């Protein structure tokens, strides 16, 4: 304890520290949260695996190397064996390799759909929140209509509209479903911002309308949207899997995808549950990882926790 230092010096020391921005203090809180670390670790591993999977996978996921062990009539499927830790799938391809490479598709679809949905939602939400009036009414009624349909059903309908399903149609279908969620969220927080004192203060300063929207209203409305996008990543992965499961996904089964892997094995599920369990567990863990991150992010960005 520094008893010798004069009173004045001690007090002056208190005042002299550098500024910490909101983002920096949120990050500081996040780093201390064990739940966030678990989520971030899961997502980190997932991203690493999907990026490195072509090199990590012991075999080519489309090579039907174990085909001679597959006996359709007796529902025989290649079991685990040296070099193939999880055995083969219905067509004699190495199951472990397919699982690893499958993460790539999941990542592309999840991130792609979320980004497109986010962009659409940002545009609509900003229009509605910043302009207001009839633009707001029109946009929000449109959003209400979309939200009134069950999201999976809407995604099926959109995916089914395309003559030839592909990876892109899956992304688009999942993305469109997310747009109203983002738009509504952003519009709500933009409206709250519009009447906030600091926006009034900027108006009184004579700051131009556009600058107020993009410098004050939008940045301050983004926290809930950022949180939502991590949660949407989880649902997007699940919805994309559901589409593939129902055969609305990429028809090219040489490129593995977790949802599609689930769908392929539905007839042999009672005799070979591991074929469904592995991709299902992967989907659940990744979705959980994003959800954990989202929830802790929400807490960290909450201004009530700021000090």
């Amino acid at each position: 304890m520094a008893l010798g230092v004069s009173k004045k010096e001690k007090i002056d020391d208190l005042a002299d520290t550098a500024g910490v921005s909101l983002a920096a203090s949120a990050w500081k809180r996040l780093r201390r949260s064990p739940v966030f670390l678990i989520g971030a670790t899961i997502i980190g591993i997932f991203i690493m695996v999907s990026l490195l999977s072509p090199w990590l996978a012991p075999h080519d996921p489309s090579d039907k190397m174990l085909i001679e062990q597959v006996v359709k009539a007796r529902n025989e499927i290649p079991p685990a064996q040296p070099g193939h830790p999880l055995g083969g799938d219905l067509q004699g391809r190495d199951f472990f390799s397919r699982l690893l490479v499958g993460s790539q598709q999941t990542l592309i679809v999840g991130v792609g759909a979320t980004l497109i949905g986010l962009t659409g939602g940002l545009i609509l939400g900003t229009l509605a929140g910043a302009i207001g009036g009839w633009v707001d009414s029109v946009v929000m009624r449109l959003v209400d209509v979309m939200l009134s349909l069950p999201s999976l059903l809407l995604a099926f309908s959109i995916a089914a509209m395309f003559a030839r399903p592909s990876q892109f149609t899956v992304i688009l279908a999942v993305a469109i479903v997310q747009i109203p969620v983002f738009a509504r969220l952003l519009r709500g927080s933009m409206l709250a911002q519009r009447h906030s004192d600091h926006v009034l203060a900027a108006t009184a300063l004579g700051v131009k309308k556009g600058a107020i929207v993009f410098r004050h209203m939008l940045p301050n409305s983004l926290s809930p949207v950022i949180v939502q996008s991590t949660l949407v990543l989880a649902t997007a992965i699940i919805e994309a899997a559901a589409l593939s499961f129902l055969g609305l996904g990429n028809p090219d089964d040489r490129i593995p995808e977790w949802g599609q892997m689930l769908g392929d094995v539905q007839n042999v599920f009672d005799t070979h549950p591991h074929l469904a369990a592995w991709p299902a567990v992967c989907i659940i863990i990744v979705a959980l990882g994003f959800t954990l991150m989202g929830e802790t992010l929400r807490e960290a960005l909450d201004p009530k926790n700021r000090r």
Partner: protein
Amino acid sequence: MSETLVSVQDMKVHFPIKRGVFMDRTVGYVYAVDGVDLEIKRGETYGLVGESGCGKSTLGRAMLRLNEPTAGKMVFDGQDFSALKGEELRRMRRRIQMVFQDPLSSLDPRQSVESILIEGLRAHGLDKGKESTNKRLRDLLTAVGLPTTALRKYPHEFSGGQRQRIGIARALALEPDLIVADEPVSALDVSVQAQVVNLMEQLQEQFGLTYLVIAHDLAVVKHISDRVGVMYLGGLVEEASAADLYAEPLHPYTRALLSAIPVPDPVVEDRRERILLAGDLPSPANPPSGCRFHTRCPWRQETRCDTERPVLRELKPGHKVACHWAEQIQSGQIQPHEVQPILVEEGDGLSPDVPLVGPASVTEALNP
């Protein structure tokens, strides 16, 4: 200091009460400000007092055109501020600045102090070169009593009083003629309020500012103001110099308001006669006929009070009052009597979506 800087003429702000989902239907109005005239001279401090729901904040915001007034105009330094549009209005805003009640919510939490202060300069092209701007920012901080190290910090890192200093520095940055301060100290701790009050007085002297101070605390307003206007339910009921208003309140409402304010002195408190008003503030959506105060007034008379709205008239030089019977009350000819409280229905005709219609002032109107 007799030059008139601001003149508000018959200002009215009525917020429509809307119902419906698709086609909004107007079912009534909140008469937040209903015909106010006032003048502010250059270099003086005009205090506007009243309780919540009286429309004082709405009036301040309407003068700044943060709300559009329904009727009436404000003439600022000879120009009709209410008629300005677009770029002209934006340029003119430089000369009228505002200080807000809640210093935290009025500062963008994502901006550092530096960018908060620089924003106004940029908007008006006063940001000439890095060096001069930097010097200007340092001068501003020194003027409001903050260390220059504050520039790199963020609003949440300051105490309430320091944040209010930042808010004042932001207003000062544009070298305004008029500063409208809406409850500048009421969100601060008691021990800090005096710092900000003294700072405002000092800055006024230093920069020749004109203030419009809006507050509910009559003691603060009396201390800081040269002239004081008292508002009740959207209208000005009395206007006088701060000393006159305290020494000789003429309007019954002012008398009641003054007598209700506690004084931190037991000797005074034990001797004081309180005029307790009956009942609550009537809803501004459904104001009483005639004199707005007649439903609670202990001096109410049988005639005129409930039929004829009194106008603000000059009873003595510089002392205006809106009461039919001010002379008689003053001379003791009319004595106070019992008042039966009248029921005031909360939320009369007000739908829950009203807050979306106008800014904070509507919530003020909703929560008397």
